[in-house]
Structures are given as structure tokens and as C-alpha cells.
């Protein structure tokens, strides 16, 4: 087999690029046997930076010719295609003036711009299905769709299209018997190395996201629950208020809201809860404080004229006694609270449990999305496209 692809052209005094492939090596790609028949080293200069890679022409008696490319430790497989994308080419002017990544359509797929450049050979040896020359100059445009890259290659006035895939690196190395010492570790994540989720992983992700969404929706539905059972008039903050009320929903929370028109001041209240026999059940102290003003041309406010206290009460008759316990002006143009009002409502919930469950499940599902987003960011890190 090797005699069929003996060296037909060799250029003296050229440094052979670092590559683990030698002419005559045989191996399989997706169970198809190939033989390495040629080697071309490439170099690209742009803006003071240098990129190099090595193409190896390979041949299969059943599948024809292809290329194995070694670049920064990654090994890709390329084959020519007669299909033509639409548009047929991506010009430099389009790349430079487009506001978004240029795209082309081919075979029902949308390929997004990844990179472009101009390259020349630095090393040629072996047999090829065309006649390479050290004078060759190519312009290439690479576009990516998932696991597949489309290269539009211009050379000598002709345009060719190549489809590039990323075979399993370990399988290629094992099949071709590559020397690990000659195969450097891959640098970064290859753009074709897209994450493949198993059906179970997708199921877990989707169920977690759906469960999280349901939990949040339920929490939002529970949030406004509550039924008013007593409300006083707005009365002067000079004497205690007595509020009789009845609780019928003992399995939920009761909310006691104290309102006072404190303005750039605070007001303090003492409250005591008595049962139907007049025996004290609970006591608490709460204050309202509300400040506002303008600074730097913008209005600001802090605090609230309302304060809520939630308690758990068994069904029955209750009396709430709220006693003003002083206050103080704490800001310019402040005014002590003049009026107060007490509202009692029942049937309240604590939806933070559902918010917590929603957060937990959304975080689980989001971890899948986050991992993919992070991976994709690393995949596309080598692109020369900039949104700026």
C-alpha cells in the first residue's frame, strides 16, 4: 500500500513541522481505513501573530481522499464537498462591515462565521490528489454549525468547499499508532467540540427547569393571599387603639399591619394580643420610620410608614391593643407621626419555601445551561470575530 503513495515530491532544506503523523501510517476514522499519503505545513501571519498547522492528505480505497489536520494538539478531519453554500463566499468587506457574524446556508444548516485568513505552505512532502506548490497562496473562511465546520478556500482563482469534523482524538491516536510524545496536548477547547447531552441529561435539565418554574409560579400565586378581618380608622397617635377580631384560619398566618404617617421621623408602638377571656397571648414592639428627600437632583426615600408583624393564632376571638410609645424627628423638615391605623388580616402563607425550592431546581437546570454557555464561550474563544 505504501508503494502506491511513495513520495513524488520533496523539497529540500525545509523544516518538517511538528506532527505525529508520518507518511504511510494507516488507521481508521469512523471505521473507515485511511492511509497518510502527504504532508503540507501551513503558516499564517496577521498583525504580528503567527499561526501554524499541518495538513495530511489521507486516502481510502472506498472513501477517496481527505485531510487530517493537526493544529494546537487538535486533530480534525476534512473532506471536499461539491455542495455549495448560499452565499457562495464571504468576502472580506462583508466580514469587516457586518454588524453580526456572517452566516451561510448549506444543506439546511446555518454556518456562523468563525475566522478567516491567508496562508502559505512551509513544507510539502508525499503524494496528493493535486499538484501542490510552495508558491500556493490560499484565503480561507471558516464557518461553524454545531459539530461541523465549513471552510471556503480560495486558491488560484478557484473556490473549494471543505467540511471539517472533529474525530475522537484518542481513537485517532490509537488507530494510527501515534507517538504520544509527538502529539502535544490540545490547547483550549476546539470550536467543533460541542457538548452532547444524553437524553437522560436533557430530561433531568428540562424537568428541573419546569419544576423550578412551577415552584416560582406557585410562590407568586401564594404571595398576595390574605383576607382582611379588621381595620381601624386613622386615629390620632395620642391614645392606645383596641382592635377586636376573629381568626377562622388557624392553619395559616395572621398579619398585623401598623401604619403611621411618620415623615422624616420614626414612631414606636407596643402591642399586646389578648384572647377571648382577656388573657394575654403575645406581645411585641414595632416601629415605623420613613425618610425622604432630594440629593444631587434625585429623589430618595428610606424606610416605610407601614410595618407588618406575622403571628400564628388558633381560631378564636382576639383583641389587639396597640399603644404609641414615642417617636423622634430624625431629618430636616421632619414631623412626628400624627395618625395611625391598624389592619389585621388572616390566611397568609410563607411562600419563601416555594421560592427556595424554585431557586434550587432552577439552579440545577441552569447549571446545565451555564456549563454549556461556558463551554461555548471557550469553544468560540479562538474566533477572530468581534462584535465591536
Amino acid at each position: 500500500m505504501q508503494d502506491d503513495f511513495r513520495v513524488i515530491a520533496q523539497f529540500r532544506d525545509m523544516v518538517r513541522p511538528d506532527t505525529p503523523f508520518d507518511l504511510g501510517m494507516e488507521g481508521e476514522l469512523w471505521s473507515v481505513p485511511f492511509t497518510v499519503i502527504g504532508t503540507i505545513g501551513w503558516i499564517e501571519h496577521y498583525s504580528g501573530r503567527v499561526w501554524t498547522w499541518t495538513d495530511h492528505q489521507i486516502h481510502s480505497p472506498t472513501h477517496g481522499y481527505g485531510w487530517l489536520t493537526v493544529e494546537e494538539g487538535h486533530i480534525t478531519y476534512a473532506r471536499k464537498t461539491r455542495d455549495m453554500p448560499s452565499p457562495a463566499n464571504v468576502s472580506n468587506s462583508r466580514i469587516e462591515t457586518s454588524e453580526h457574524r456572517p452566516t451561510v446556508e448549506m444543506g439546511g444548516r446555518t454556518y456562523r462565521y468563525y475566522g478567516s485568513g491567508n496562508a502559505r505552505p512551509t513544507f510539502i512532502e508525499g503524494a496528493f490528489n493535486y499538484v501542490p506548490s510552495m508558491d500556493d497562496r490560499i484565503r480561507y473562511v471558516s464557518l461553524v454549525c454545531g459539530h461541523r465546520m465549513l471552510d471556503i478556500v480560495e486558491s488560484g482563482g478557484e473556490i473549494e468547499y471543505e467540511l471539517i469534523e472533529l474525530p475522537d482524538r484518542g481513537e485517532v491516536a490509537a488507530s494510527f499508532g501515534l507517538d504520544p510524545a509527538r502529539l502535544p496536548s490540545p490547547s483550549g477547547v476546539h470550536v467543533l467540540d460541542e457538548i452532547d447531552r444524553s437524553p437522560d441529561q436533557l430530561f433531568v435539565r428540562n424537568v428541573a427547569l419546569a419544576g423550578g418554574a412551577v415552584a416560582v409560579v406557585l410562590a407568586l400565586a401564594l404571595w398576595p393571599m390574605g383576607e382582611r378581618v379588621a381595620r381601624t380608622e386613622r386615629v390620632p397617635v395620642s391614645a392606645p387603639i383596641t382592635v377586636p377580631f376573629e381568626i377562622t384560619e388557624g392553619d395559616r398566618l395572621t398579619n398585623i399591619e401598623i401604619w403611621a404617617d411618620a415623615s422624616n421621623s420614626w414612631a414606636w408602638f407596643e402591642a399586646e394580643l389578648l384572647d377571648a377571656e382577656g388573657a394575654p397571648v403575645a406581645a411585641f414592639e414595632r416601629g415605623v420610620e420613613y425618610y425622604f428627600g432630594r440629593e444631587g437632583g434625585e429623589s430618595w426615600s428610606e424606610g416605610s410608614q407601614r410595618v407588618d408583624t406575622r403571628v400564628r393564632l388558633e381560631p378564636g376571638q382576639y383583641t389587639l391593643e396597640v399603644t404609641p410609645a414615642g417617636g423622634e424627628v430624625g431629618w430636616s423638615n421632619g414631623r412626628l407621626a400624627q395618625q395611625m391605623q391598624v389592619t389585621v388580616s388572616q390566611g397568609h402563607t410563607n411562600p419563601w419555601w416555594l421560592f427556595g425550592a424554585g431557586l434550587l431546581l432552577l439552579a440545577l437546570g441552569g447549571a446545565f445551561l451555564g456549563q454549556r454557555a461556558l463551554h461555548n464561550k471557550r469553544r468560540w474563544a479562538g474566533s477572530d470575530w468581534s462584535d465591536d
Partner: protein
Amino acid sequence: MVTRVVFVILVVSIVGTAATLSLNGVWGENSNVVSTRVGSPGGGYGLGGGVK
């Protein structure tokens, strides 16, 4: 298949438990409320607790 069923049961359990705890207002009481009921020091606020 078993993995999927177990995971669905787990998610439904998490959401169901959270919904039950939310509806019952568990840990929703203000901590500064002091029960004055004899025999219920500290207010007795907790799972299934109350001020009475």
C-alpha cells in the same frame, strides 16, 4: 427509565413539600413576637407551633 421516574418523583416531592410548608406558613412568624402565654416560653413558634 427508572432514573427518570425517580427524578420526577424527587422534583414533585420537593415542590410539594415546599408548597405544603408555604401554605402552612411554617417559619413565617416574626421572631420578635414574645408569647405571654404561660407554658409557652419563647412563643413556641415552630413547626406546628403557635402562640396559644
